[in-house]
């Protein structure tokens, strides 16, 4: 059975509890690995209030799909869900949420790490820090 996948790019805040509550997982699975990327207050040695994310939407979705294709070839993963914010994301808010479901924890951890590493090389999303006291 092919890996289930979900890619969401959204301006809306990520409701992690709601996403987890909507998890669908078969009875053979034993691991659900989660990663949440959070905006931290320091950037380039200065304090920020937020990060403004820009995406080349269509290409970002396509590149995520290609990454998911490779994950499907490399690890036995049942499903991946990914949500990435665009627009203004405040400090302490989540900019990225990832869920990887598999039978065992090792592939869930590995696939999740690899997904994020590859995203940071290829997926056309950029961030612009909004500094405190900026115009």
């Amino acid at each position, binding site marked *: 059975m092919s890996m289930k996948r979900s890619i969401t790019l959204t301006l809306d805040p990520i409701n992690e509890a709601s996403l987890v509550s909507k998890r669908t997982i078969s009875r053979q699975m034993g691991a659900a690995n989660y990663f949440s990327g959070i905006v931290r207050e320091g950037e380039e040695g200065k304090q920020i209030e937020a990060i403004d994310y*820009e995406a*080349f939407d*269509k*290409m970002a979705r396509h590149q995520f799909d290609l990454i998911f294709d490779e994950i499907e070839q490399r690890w036995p993963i049942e499903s991946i869900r990914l949500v*990435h914010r665009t627009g203004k994301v405040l400090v302490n808010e989540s900019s*990225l949420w990832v869920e990887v479901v598999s039978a065992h924890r090792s592939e869930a951890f590995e696939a999740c790490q690899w997904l994020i590493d590859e995203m*940071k090389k290829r*997926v056309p999303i*950029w961030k*612009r820090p909004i500094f405190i006291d900026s115009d």
Partner: protein
Amino acid sequence: MEQEHIEIKVNFFSYFKDLTGCESTVLHLGRGTSLDQAMVIIRQNFPKMESMKRSTLVAVGLEYVDPIHVLQVGEEISLFPPVQGG
């Protein structure tokens, strides 16, 4: 009869929009022009992009392609700085 020139739209993302002063432009290229040849023209048209040469990522359509890719009618080039998702 085939046209000798084709129109290729070029899109700029992130701070490349500030460097070029625009979100997109249109190139009129000879048929058979490769991506790397088009990049030379883009840097001539937008001199500030020359300093970004080493840190420019280039896509055609939704894909990263080889510089020798020959541009086809209807294709779009997108230029952007290193990506920063997450």
